[in-house]
Structure formats: C-alpha cells, structure tokens
C-alpha cells in the first residue's frame, strides 16, 4: 500500500531522525513510502492565529499533495489533529474542497495509531532500553484518542519499562505561539510537567509531538537536568535517536 509521509515542518527542520524513524517503521510494515517533496506545513499556526485564508491555502496544498496515496501517516498528533479534525471546518466555505478534506481526513493517521490499528505491528528492531514515562500530547489525546496505541507499541519492547507519570494527560504549556506570547505562564506549566517527570525517575520521557518535545526538553536543560532524555516514540521503536542520522 502507498503511504504518504507528512513529516511535519518541525520534524523536517529540528529533528529529522524522527522522520527517518517513521520511514523505517513504515518500510518494516511493507508500506511503499511516498514523500511529496514540496510539503511544508499543515497550516495550523495560521489557523490558530486566526489567519483563515493562509490556513486554507496550506490545507489545499496538503490535500493536493496527498491526493494519490492510500494513507497519510504523520508522526505528530497535533498536525494529525489539524488534518483529521479541523480541515473540514476550515474548508467548509469552499464546497469543492470540503469533500476532499473529508476524504483526506478519513485516510490520515497519526503514526502510532497507524502502526497499531492499520498494520498491527508487534515486533521492532531497536537497541533502545531503559525506564520511560509517556507524555500524552493534547491534540493526539483529545482530538485523535491516542492513548493506548503508543503504550501497546512500547509493551512489545522487552527492555523498556514504562512507568506512568502523574499528570501525563496535562498540557505541557507549549500551545504554539502561546509559548512565546505568554512565556511566564507557559514556563510555569512546563515547570510543573518537569516536576512530575523528575518525580517519576525514568531515563527518558517519550512522546509523540514535537511542540511538547522542544518545550519539555528545553525546560529540562534550562533547569540543569541533562540526564533525562526526551524522545519521540518513533525514535524509541527504531533506535534511531539522532546522532547516526547526520
């Protein structure tokens, strides 16, 4: 099956290892990975800033780029949520795109959701080991019901010990431009997240969204915690954790 990878603008720029890990997972599941090279952004920053017109232009761009695949897989609950739960509303005043938006939404999956509910993957080739906690990102959890999927995948890893942290479903305080516009509040929220994480005593925090990842990792380091890793679940499932990809 032809699986379009929407890698997301943040993975593309900040952490390409996650995209490579996603490709590795999809290829392991015998998917033909299609990467439309003109892809940029799903339009969420414009949508959430109230710039509907720009968001519509980007949504239409994504729709046309992925018109020719069986599935679209995204290593992010946030961008996945944008396409799956918001495109239809966003394009509701453009009748010819509304149906296309529905079509795309029905074929779009967040990565862990795809691995569990479409290809039912249960074995992984990874060297990663250690105690981890999982942070449930807001959009993944509350827009796409991503909760059991990552835990199920992680349960297949013999050398990974998942400890549930307190407040795992609580927002990390990122919120896109919120993190810079209301920095004091955002900073306090992510501090509380770091407190909960550190109280759980794990080697790594694992999650499925880049915004939370940059926010939490950035805060941990600023607090002087250089020990707790912050990893995307695709990195954990493949052992591709950054360095070797450069």
């Amino acid at each position, binding site marked *: 099956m032809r699986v379009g990878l929407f890698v997301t*603008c943040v993975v593309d720029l900040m952490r390409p290892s996650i995209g490579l890990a996603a490709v590795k997972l999809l290829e392991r599941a015998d998917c033909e990975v299609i990467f439309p090279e003109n*892809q940029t952004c799903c339009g969420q920053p414009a949508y959430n800033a109230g710039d*509907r017109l720009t968001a519509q232009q980007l949504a239409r761009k994504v729709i046309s780029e992925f018109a020719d695949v069986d599935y679209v897989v995204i290593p992010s609950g946030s961008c996945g949520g944008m396409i799956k739960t918001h495109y239809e509303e966003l394009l509701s005043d453009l009748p010819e795109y509304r149906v296309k938006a529905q079509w795309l939404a029905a074929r779009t999956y967040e990565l862990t959701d795809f691995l569990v509910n479409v290809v039912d993957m249960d074995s992984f080739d990874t060297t990663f080991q250690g105690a981890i906690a999982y942070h449930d990102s807001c959009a993944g959890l*509350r827009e796409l019901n991503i909760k059991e999927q990552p835990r199920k995948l992680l349960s297949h890893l013999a050398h990974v010990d998942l400890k549930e942290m307190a407040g795992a479903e609580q927002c990390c305080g990122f919120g896109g431009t919120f993190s810079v516009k*209301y920095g004091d509040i*955002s900073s306090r929220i992510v501090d509380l997240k770091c407190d909960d994480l550190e109280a759980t005593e794990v080697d790594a925090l694992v999650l499925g969204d880049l915004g939370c990842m940059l926010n939490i990792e950035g805060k941990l380091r600023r607090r002087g915690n250089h020990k707790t890793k912050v990893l995307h679940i695709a990195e954990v499932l493949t052992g591709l954790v950054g360095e070797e990809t450069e």
Partner: protein
Amino acid sequence: MELTSHQFKSVSSAKLKDVKLQKALYKAKDGFVVPRAKVVAELDNFEEIRQAAADVRDHGLAHLDVYLEEWEKQAQAAGTIVHWAESYEELNALVVKIAQDNQVKKIIKSKSMVGEETGLNRYVEGHGIEVKETDLGEYIIQQAGEHPSHIIAPATHKSKDDVADLFAEKHQRPRLDDAEKLTHEAREILRPHFLDADMGITGANFMIAETGSTVILTNEGNGRMTTTMPRVHVAISSIEKCIPTLDDFALMMRLLPRSATGQVISNYVSMTTGPKRAKDNDGPGEFHVIILDVGRTRVLGSDLRDALRCIRCGACMNHCPVYQNVGGHAYGWVYPGPIGSVLTPAYNGIENAIDLPNAATLCNQCGVVCPVKIPLPDLMRKLREKQYERNLKSSAEKWSLRLWAYLALRPKLYSIVTRIMARVGKLLGGDSRRINHLLFGGKDWTRHRDLPAPRGRTFRDIYLNRNKTTNR
C-alpha cells in the same frame, strides 16, 4: 463590574509570583478535579448524558423566544412579577425601585454572577440600602472588598489564614485558626441579618418554562433562607438560563453538581414558583424576577452561540492549565477561565479583551470536561479569527506570520531557507546541542527555556539524498 482584561498579561505574571495565591490555587485544583473524576466515573453513560444535555440546551436556545414567553406566562400565573432588563443600569435601577417601593432597608443576598456583571451591590448601597452577602465565599469577598475569582467558589484564591486575619479585623473578635470555627463565627454574625432583612436577592441557575419556576443550587442553606424569610424576594437571571421542562432540569441536575464540585447532588436544590400562597407557612409576599439580556441576544445570533449553553459549573476553569496557575482575577471580569475567555470578549467587545482568547494552549481539557460540550477551543479560535479580520493583532505577530506563510507556500524557497536554518541552528547549538540565547522573537522562547538545536540537515535533504543514492 469594571473590565480590566486588557491587563491580563501583567496581572497574570504578578499572580504567578504570588506565593500565597499559588498555594491556594494548588489546593483548589485537587479539590475540584479529583472529586469530579470520581463521580463521573461512577456513571456508565456520562458521554450520552452530556450529549443529551447539549441537545436540550441547543433546542432551548434555538427556540428561546418561545420558551421565555412560556416561562413568563407560567410565572405570572403563579403570581411572579416579571421584569426584563436590557442594560446593567436598568436591572440595578429595577432592584432599587422594588426595594424603595417596599420600604426596604436591608437586603440579604445569595450569590449571583449576573449581580456581579451589573455591579449590583455597589449600586444598591449607593442608594442607602444595606446589602449582606450570605454565601460564605461571597461574604468573605464582600468583607475583603474584592471580586469573586471563581464562579462557584468565589473566595478560592484565599487561604484559611487570610480568612482568619480578615474575620479578626472585620468582626473585632479574637483570631480563630480553625476552618469550622471560622464558619461558625460567620454564621453567628449572619444569622440576625437573615432575621431582620426586608428583601432577599438570589440568582437563578435555571428558569423552567414548563412551570415558570426559578432554581438555585446551594450547599450552605443560605439560599433557601434568602428565598423564604424576607418579605420580598427578587431573583435576577439572564435570558439564556431558560430551559423548557422539568425533565430537562432533571437532566441538568445529573451533570451540574457532578461537574462543579464532584457532588452527586447539591445540598440544597431550591425551586421557586411564585410568592407565598394563602396556605403556605413560609415565603415572600412578593416575588420578582428580573431577566437580563446584555450581550446574550447578540451572541445568540453569532457563531459564538454554543457558549450560551453554559450552565456555570466551573469545570472548564478547574481543569484549565492557565487558570490553575494564574487564578480568576487575572482574567479581569466576572467569568474567568476558558468560558470567560469567550464570554468576556463576546459580551464586552472583542477589542476590550484581546489577550483572553489567545492566552490558551488550546489543549481542549476544557472542551472534554464541559458538561454541555461547548467547543471552547474552537470558540477561542473563532475569536482569534475575528481579531485577525479586524486587524487587532500585534504587527510583530502579523508580520512574522506573513513571512512564514510566504515561505510555506513556496516549497523551493522554503527548502533553501530551512536548509540554512538547520545549519545555522546546529552551529548556534554547539557541543551542548542547545541554544540558550536567541534574538528577536526567539528571545521570548529562550528567556524561559533552551531550544534543542537543529541537527544540521533537514529531513527533506537527508531523505531525498538517500533515495538518490539508492536509486543510482
């Protein structure tokens, strides 16, 4: 009430540094979130009940004209005197007129957020009439000369010690340090006021069209005394609180106490239908209901209409990561938290509360706990769209958005710019792989946290290059 939402940013930053407030907020959070989760888990069809309640509210709002007229007809048949107020001034003036017509010197009041909107207490006191708040939280706030910070727990920002100091000062009695003793002292002080007040003012959680009743839910019994003991009772409410039937009310009751305080039912559910009848032992001789519009009809005809479903449980604020850390006063008007971030600009003008719809992570914790399924993040986003359309966004935000959009819509240019950013970012990160000092917009990020550095190459470059190599 005076609107100070434009100060959100500076006030919220100060609130984050207020150690006493932070302690009180931390305590309040667990006091609401944990009990709610417990009683919600006891119902096996909570989601179905939520949907049914949202549908009932939608239906009621879609035919609000019909149900309000029906309510008025039934209320008048029971002997209630019905008034309509299109402005805050009109409502306040009606209350004073009713008081003056009845030679009222003292009013006891059970809590009302509509009364907070209109600034009722100050207005009434300005006409030489004494007003005593009787809900313990409201009483504390009134003594302190403050505004409520939460719609159902008005003094939640205050600690027991704050209250002990306040009571010692205002009551001129020895300082107590036990919550129960403090409550008893308030009760002792309030009791004579219940007995000699001439008029009682309450809010109304609901107005039931089928019976012409008003309903209040309380936990302290003060509400029931306020509705039954004085000669005159005035209930103040607003048009969107009208629901069609008693059955609909029963449905709301399954949700409201559970969502609000984690109770299966409130201690007192008081339904008032008309004044005292010939055969009744208790009750007021006159019963007035004043129904406020102010903003509601305008919102009813707008795309923010879903917000009018609100049944004022407070769950959205109790679960909001922003409210939990800054408290209610930062929002600068009557309704704090996510619902306040929608209602404040909706009722007072978008330009007067620019920060509120933006000061949210859109985490949707509010949306999933709302008992009537108000899509609060969607409504905040709609308000952001209106701000954008009306050119109310800061020029820095607008221009950075435009620059980013320009690039994102031009993939070739975008890939070159991101390629450069990935390289420069890697250099900036150095050996530590983190950037701790950015300029311009990035400054606001690195003021609070590091930025994990890019890895030097974009995914696009790595992947396309890899495929080129393999295809060869």
